[in-house]
């Protein structure tokens, strides 16, 4: 009897784990209609496919931690994207959306996504509006938080994306505010993320 119960428990755990893996890791890439390699430079804004109405994924978005030096992950519902580019676009748009206190965003006010590309290599190019630089307070710490909000949002939620390069108005730039080197794609950096489980979902992304 107890052996049966043990097996049943193990089965449930495996099933939950599989479901979590499907939801968090596999889903965005696995459900992309054309493979990523087939569209190395497709502009997302132009190619935004109609996502399944109402369907969402639970993503980890990043906001300024209480210490002001780190990011903290917050679980939020983000619209499902049928392709990697669509999903990445939805994630970045959710991350750029204004938030209410107590959340504090490291994205300067007015910043919008102008385009998004993903290469065969898994490098995502995120073209932001100039407000991300113009409205930035400056400082190395604040700039690191802004940059890694974008980088980690994509690399943490989408395993297909290995690195992210931020563009401004379609152009490569040295930095946003004079400090962080943006001339090449940046990899995920979790040292800037405060450890601990992601905060509870706070609502649906934009």
């Amino acid at each position: 009897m107890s052996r049966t119960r043990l097996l049943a428990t193990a089965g449930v755990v495996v099933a939950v784990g599989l479901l979590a893996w499907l939801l968090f890791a596999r889903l965005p890439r696995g459900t992309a209609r054309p493979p990523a390699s087939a569209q190395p430079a497709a502009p997302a804004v132009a190619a935004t496919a109609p996502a399944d109405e109402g369907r969402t994924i639970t993503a980890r978005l990043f906001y300024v931690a209480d210490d002001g030096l780190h990011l903290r992950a917050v679980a939020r519902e983000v619209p499902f994207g049928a392709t990697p580019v669509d999903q990445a676009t939805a994630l970045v748009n959710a991350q750029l959306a204004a938030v209410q206190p107590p959340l504090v965003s490291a994205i300067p006010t007015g910043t919008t996504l102008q385009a998004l590309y993903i290469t065969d290599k898994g490098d995502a190019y995120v073209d932001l509006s100039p407000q991300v630089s113009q409205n930035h307070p400056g400082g190395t710490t604040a700039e690191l938080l802004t940059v890694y909000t974008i980088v980690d949002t994509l690399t943490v939620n989408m395993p297909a994306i290995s690195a992210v390069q931020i563009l401004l108005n379609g152009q490569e730039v040295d930095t946003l505010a004079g400090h962080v080197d943006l001339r090449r794609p940046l990899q995920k950096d979790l040292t800037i993320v405060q450890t601990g489980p992601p905060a509870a979902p706070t609502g649906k992304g934009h």
Partner: protein
Amino acid sequence: MTPRPPGLAARILLFAAAIAAAGALGTAPRLRAAQAVRAGTPYTLLTASGRRPLATSDVRGHDMFGLDDLASLFQLQVHEDTLGALTVSYKGKTIILTPEQTLVSVNGRLVSLPAPPARAGRRWFVPVEFVGRALAPIYDTPLELRPESRLLIVGNLRVPHVSVTVAPAGPGARITIDIRPRTPETVTRSGTELRIAFQADDLDPVLPAVSSSGALVRSFSTSAPATLVIGLGPQAGQTRATTQAVGATAGRVEIDVMPAASPGQPQPSAPAPYPTPTPPAPSAPAAPATPAAPSGPLPGLPGAPAQPSLQTIVIDPGHGGSDPGVKGPHGTLEKDITMAVARQLKAAIESRLGVRVLLTRNGDQTLTADERASMANNNKADLFLSLHANASFRSNVQGAEVFYLGLDRDAAKATQEAQAGAQQLPVFGGGSRTLEIVPWQLAQARFIPESQAFAQMIEQQFQGKVPLDARGLTQAPLRVLVGANMPAVLVEMGYLTNPDQENQLGTAAYQNTIVQALYAAIVQFRDYLTHQTGRQNPGGPGTGAPKPASPQGAGR
């Protein structure tokens, strides 16, 4: 009634005063038609465009300028009226001079001159003090007369008074340079020449007479733009410069010149934290041969190791020009804070360590990250220090933080490539030559361990003196550090977005605390480099070097 022209009342008053004075003496006022005039020692006129002589004349024992010379120089209108008074006009303002009277009306106000104006032939002369007392109040550009130096300074020029004395001090000599007002300076030595470059437009020097055959010091001179040049004698050895404030406004630089050690005789030296090549290298501080007497040998020269491992430092005041950096809630700009601290740190290092320090910018200029790094690379700097003030999205965050370069995916590959950058190239006539090729974007990769060591030293020096934020030390992909081909660190000195810390960062006391901590870290890093060199080159200058010195007192 027709209004009287301005100055008429003063003219009448002066005339009445003259009559009264003459009456009291029982003599009638009279003009001396001719005066005995002899050529005097000319003044030097200093303007933004340079120097030029300005003739003076000795009239009745007074130093005087020709009024016509002043008129052409300063665009003055001179009019002699029928009463014999002189009216000097400049842009609607007037000075009225009365013969035989030392009182002068300056735009309606009376001032006194040491002597009355004098006429010689067709020329009028006025005491040199006329410029400072009468002309300066109505002139639209600052005029400063320095009779002791025979200088007339026109415009907002920085011309510090520099008084130099030299005196024996034990076996060596001490050169004392008093500077008024206090002016940042840079002391450099090239062979037998010491150059003290002041951040000024020109100098007002008083130099001592020394024998050109002096054994330790043989000449003093100045060179443009504002540099004091000291020629050292053939027996001069090491030199050490120290800077100190004298009162609220003056400064003093003292330079000790030690005699060079004769063969087989160690350099006179007191406790020297750094080993010198003179054998045998002591493992403990060298004791003087005899108990130190007040007139005994000067202390050693701890700031000048024989072959310094740290010769040039480039300090980068972050941002500048059109890029103000962070703006605090009260309006403090990051670019101003970084510049202020950089200047103080430069002065501290140069005066105490004798190390060449260059700033990537000396004014409010816009520079790219590559221009900053290339200045360090082109000057073969041994250390690059970028100064910044931080910002946070949360206004309560405070504290300093030290950064060194972090590279992610390509870090290992970049380091390997940088280390494998030396290439063997064939040369004409046979053989080959090793040419070091370092890609710009990889320049910093091979210095990351040294940069980390220096960053840790800064963090250590800040502890207890400069509050650190919760991280203290961080590795990050920072743009300005990437191209630096030497150990390089970026220091965020505090958060301008925190109102309290914004106030703190603007104070001289807090800036000085930061400067002292950075200076101590640099001394510690120099010792670290010396130690590294000694390990790589046994018998060299680093032999027997101690572990990185205790931060307190090191090199002081």
